[in-house]
């Protein structure tokens, strides 16, 4: 176990491992997203209250789940960087941030579009929506902060601290629908209870969520390899790779 973690810290070994894991995740993502999309758009039944507008859920929920999961993953990587000074952890945190920001934006955007026909408004300063908007600013802050430092090491440390502080927003998002009165409905998927939807509606949703996760993992592996090459470009193994 410890030798495995130690090896993972070596950029070259990590580059090879990411390359080997990558194709499987790309294939799974493509398959799940294709099946999920066709199922969600064409075959899942119409909602008796919201009609077909509820089909927005199939991009809204996966992107919202990822927006939070990615930030947690970044926080874990940040902790690893601060405690063990493993540089690959910082590279991982860095490549995850833009996609996290994109997913947060997608969750807000799709939620707004859904709000117009169902709530009669595209935006309200409600606890869930506001905490999600703060999440978007946290992502943008994390991305911008890195560029504000002259030294890459200093920037990495500052970003890691901000990420660890920012992770406090995740439970606020999660429990915002419980703690405050809100327009937003409670979570669709919980670990303790079966979903309050019929199976023909939540099964494609589960497929979409898994598809988004696989896509995120595949993209992170791919971009982590890029980041490793960029930072290790002076080493001999990278130069040999280029030939």
């Amino acid at each position: 176990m410890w030798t495995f973690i130690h090896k993972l810290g070596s950029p070259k070994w990590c580059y090879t491992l990411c390359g080997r894991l990558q194709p499987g995740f790309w294939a799974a993502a493509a398959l799940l997203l294709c099946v999920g999309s066709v199922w969600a758009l064409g075959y899942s039944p119409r909602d008796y209250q919201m009609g077909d507008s509820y089909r927005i859920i199939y991009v809204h929920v996966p992107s919202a789940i990822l927006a939070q999961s990615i930030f947690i993953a970044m926080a874990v990587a940040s902790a690893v960087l601060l405690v063990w000074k493993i540089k690959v952890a910082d590279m991982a945190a860095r490549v995850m941030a833009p996609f996290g920001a994109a997913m947060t934006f997608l969750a807000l955007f799709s939620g707004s579009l859904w709000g117009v026909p169902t709530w009669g408004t595209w935006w309200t300063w409600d606890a869930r929506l506001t905490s999600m908007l703060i999440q978007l600013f946290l992502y943008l802050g994390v991305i911008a902060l890195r560029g504000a430092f002259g030294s890459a090491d200093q920037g990495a440390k500052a970003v890691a601290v901000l990420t660890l502080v920012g992770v406090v927003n995740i439970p606020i998002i999660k429990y915002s629908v419980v703690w405050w009165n809100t327009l937003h409905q409670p979570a669709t998927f919980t670990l303790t209870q079966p979903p309050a939807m019929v199976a023909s509606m939540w099964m494609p949703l589960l497929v979409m969520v898994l598809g988004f996760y696989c896509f995120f993992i595949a993209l992170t592996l791919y971009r982590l390899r890029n980041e490793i090459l960029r930072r290790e470009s002076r080493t001999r193994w990278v130069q040999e790779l280029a030939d």
Partner: protein
Amino acid sequence: MAFDSFSALLAMGGYAKYVWPAWGLAALLLLGFVCWARHERRQLFEQLRRRRRREARAA
């Protein structure tokens, strides 16, 4: 099948202007990230090769 025809699918029961932009942005973002990542990788290799040639000439 939840829809009778392809045009009914496109109409989304009157909610087309809400459903399709949401799905459209999702597709755009996922494809965009793939293109960006691939572009990043190609550029990196080009840079590495260029530097290699320069160093070879200097040597």
